[in-house]
């Protein structure tokens, strides 16, 4: 029996409007007051899960569930409650299971918070992105600074004891002082976890088509260093490229990705990865919500189903494992890829160039390697 953990990712593809930087599988609602097809979508999710489990039964208990989007908080607490209880009828929950829901920090969503807690959600992740109203507008966000504070307060009042806030930096025309104010404002809320990440301009987004004026590389780096210093001063330890946590508050669901664990991916455009008998299999669902609603529960909802070749396993493992400051245990590498770490030739090059370090049965990116992770990883391609 494998010791690899199993997680569940549930995708909720709708947003009130699409942000110009976002290239995730999210779809704007037709009009502001249109409702998401809540019942139909939850039914589809459950049919899809049944299909997945019928294909390959799963005896392992879930160690985490992540409901991401899109904006899952557009779904009512009743709908989320039904999803979770129905999942639990099909899969066991580990006693310390982490159940996260992504929420927009708006007041409308906040009305559901107490219900989410009652439904079993025990971690809330809010996409704050900035506290500067002008920047929030530019980023296409529908909330403002005051709503962030109110939503956060309501989340605490509703009983959330574990909250993550997403904050971006190197935003259009952002200054070092502006970035500091943003971060200090968020630190003042004292969340358990912070994702502090640089805005990346992706192709096929509004920003990609018409890039805004961004801080140059030097300023972006100064902002990042300032942020790392501030976060450390406030007791947040960086454990991944963009993730910072109070002791004991690391995101279990994300850690499972980075540890190359297994996860079911259910929902429009969701990606899953499962390993059995030394074979790693990836499945992705059809992206468009309408097609997903129609086909969920059958093979037509599966857009991609492939076995990861032994030649691809090292890079797939390292793409995840080396994002962590602590790297990975060599034993886990063997366990999860079925391969021998000591025979991986590019590792020697990476060590010689001072990008990787090995000690106590673990492989870690050096400070240089962590900063230049893409360069380090291309060695293994």
């Amino acid at each position, binding site marked *: 029996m494998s010791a690899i953990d199993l997680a569940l*990712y549930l995708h909720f593809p709708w947003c009130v409007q699409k942000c110009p930087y976002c290239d995730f599988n999210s779809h704007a609602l037709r009009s502001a007051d249109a409702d998401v097809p809540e019942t139909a979508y939850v039914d589809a999710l459950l049919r899809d899960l049944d299909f997945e489990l019928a294909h390959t039964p799963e005896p392992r208990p879930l160690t985490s569930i992540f409901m991401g989007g899109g904006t899952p908080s557009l779904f009512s607490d009743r709908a989320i409650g039904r999803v979770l209880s129905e999942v639990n009828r099909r899969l066991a929950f580990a006693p310390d299971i982490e159940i996260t829901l992504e929420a927009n920090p708006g007041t409308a969503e906040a009305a559901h918070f107490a219900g989410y807690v009652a439904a079993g959600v025990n971690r809330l992740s809010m996409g704050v992105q900035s506290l500067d109203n002008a920047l929030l507008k530019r980023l296409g966000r529908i909330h403002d600074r005051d709503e962030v504070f109110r939503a956060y307060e309501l989340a605490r009042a509703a009983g959330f004891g574990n909250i993550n806030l997403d904050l971006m930096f190197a935003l259009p025309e952002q200054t070092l002082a502006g970035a500091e104010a943003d971060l200090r404002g968020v630190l003042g809320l004292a969340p358990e976890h912070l994702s502090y*990440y640089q805005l*990346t301009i992706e192709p096929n987004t509004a920003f990609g088509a018409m890039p805004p004026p961004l801080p140059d590389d030097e300023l972006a780096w100064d902002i990042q260093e300032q942020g790392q210093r501030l976060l450390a001063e406030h007791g947040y330890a960086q454990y991944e490229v963009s993730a910072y946590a109070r002791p004991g508050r690391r995101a279990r669901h994300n850690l499972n990705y980075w540890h190359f664990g297994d996860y079911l991916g259910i929902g429009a455009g969701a*990606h899953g990865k499962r390993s059995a008998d030394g074979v790693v299999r990836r499945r*992705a669902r059809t992206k468009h919500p309408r097609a997903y609603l129609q086909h969920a529960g059958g093979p037509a909802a599966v857009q991609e189903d492939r076995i990861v070749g032994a030649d691809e396993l090292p890079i797939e493992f390292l793409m995840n494992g080396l994002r962590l400051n602590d790297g990975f245990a060599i034993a886990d590498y063997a366990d999860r890829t079925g391969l021998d770490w000591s025979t991986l030739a590019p590792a020697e090059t990476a060590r010689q160039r001072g990008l990787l370090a090995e000690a106590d049965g673990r492989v870690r990116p050096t400070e240089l390697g962590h*900063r*230049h992770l893409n360069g380090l990883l*291309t060695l293994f*391609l």
Partner: protein
Amino acid sequence: MRLDHIRNFCIIAHIDHGKSTLADRFIQLTGGLEEREMQAQVLDNNPIERERGITIKAQSVQLHYTARNGERYQFNLIDTPGHVDFSYEVSRSLEACEGALLVVDASQGVEAQSVANCYTALDQNLEVIPVLNKIDLQNAEPDRVREEIEQVIGISAADALKVSAKTGLGVADVLEEVVLRLPPPKGNPDGPLQALIVDSWFDNYLGVVSLVRVTSGSVKKGQKIRVMSTGRDHEITMLGVNAPKRLFKDELQCGEVGFIVAGIKDIFGAPVGDTLTAAGNPAGLEALPGFRTVQPRVFAGMFPVDADDFEDFRESLQKLRLNDSALQFEPENSTALGFGFRVGFLGMLHMDIVQERLEREYNLNLITTAPSVVYEVLRTDGDVVKVDNPAELPEPGSIDELREPIISARVLMPQSCVGPVMQLCMEKRGVQKNLRYLGSQVQMEVEMPMAEVVLDFFDRLKSVSRGYASFEYEFVRFQAADLVKLDVLVNGDKVDALATIVHRDNAYPRGRDLCERMQDVIHRQMFDIAIQAAIGAKIIARSTVKALRKDVTAKCYGGDASRKRKLLEKQKEGKKRMKQVGSVEIPQEAFLAVLGVDKKK
């Protein structure tokens, strides 16, 4: 065919002055091809030739023209290569002709390249008929251009023909004038076989095919012939003409131009300019004059980006050489770039064409170093050696004298350009020899080190003259000069493929420019990169490529592994054209940055 009913001629024209269009019209008017078979510009067979509007291999077309006197004439129209790099090939094509049409764009006037080729034609006693093309254009100035032809080339242009190859206007008159004004070929139809090899190329199905001009006797299918320079005998298996469709025949007679196939394995077995006789040369004929082997004058290192492609690269060069006897190559081992070849070319255009064909037709990913001319080194021990690779220049202590190739160049330009062009030539260490005012044009003769021409002269000339100056040159001699080797060091390592030989007076500015250019083209990496220019052990310039602060994808994209991988693969793809030198990745542009060092991009 009686000799007096044959006309062998070529068209001399500058690029874009309408040579191919006119040839197409000739074919159309004489009924050589059905309308639907007319592919624009029949003569340029190779796609690169067609794109660039230049001819690399000589072709010939046989046309049958019924003149206004009712007699039927055989025309052999021989196409000539149209670039300064291929002047020897041009002279051999002209040798097969008795006459030439000098085609000049009536709106542009004469250009140096056609002037040079026209001089060669006159030297070889060809009758030249001036033809003013594009007469239909609004801005055509036939009178001015006629005057220019007389003043610059020195032939009468009073009865120059006015045509528009595009509309067909006046083209029929050209054919008639060819009969009336060009002399028929001479030669003894009953004499022993003697023929000139105008060009040779390799055909995948036939082997070596040679275009020949029979100067005496005749050549028959099945006949045994001798290639004079190799002394080898071969049996003719096929011969014929292009009319313009390939037409096999039993015999090529005295005065005719056609192709032969004789089971010759490579083009070195049938060199351009060589003489054919009957097997054993029983009549003891002399070789036709003018034959020589061509010498490459420009050399560059070419290296496969992926070391695994080395054998493919060798094979591709060998295939190219089947058709290009001027192409020379030998293996080169660079510490920076690994295993590749030192390749010799006739000139810059030739190099461009070869590089393009290797990449396009053979799908090779190559890094080409800056081209170098061939230097002559008089060593202290009295030996004279040729050096075509700056990295292989002997230590200064063992050099008694370093000599560089000098060319004599002829620049033809409008008067308004004389100042800037003269200044450019001086900057390029040129010595003016002659300046002639010829109507509205000025012809300047200048001697210049060839190394300066290889550097960036063509581009600079184009820009200072706004495209109006034209240029042709020939090698004249080696001449001693105060030259030094300029090395480039990247993070302290000498990069052999970046070394150049420069004049001492230019070394400092060039070193500084080079460092700046390298700083621009070398991407920021994980660490600072020091770039230094040095003469011997002395550093004369430096620059630094500052380290990239970070290179990491901020978001982890949840469970979607494939998209992150695509990002990485894209990044890896970008490194494909880079070469790892020590720990530094150097892009292809860096190796060519040496080229454009004088002025900013």
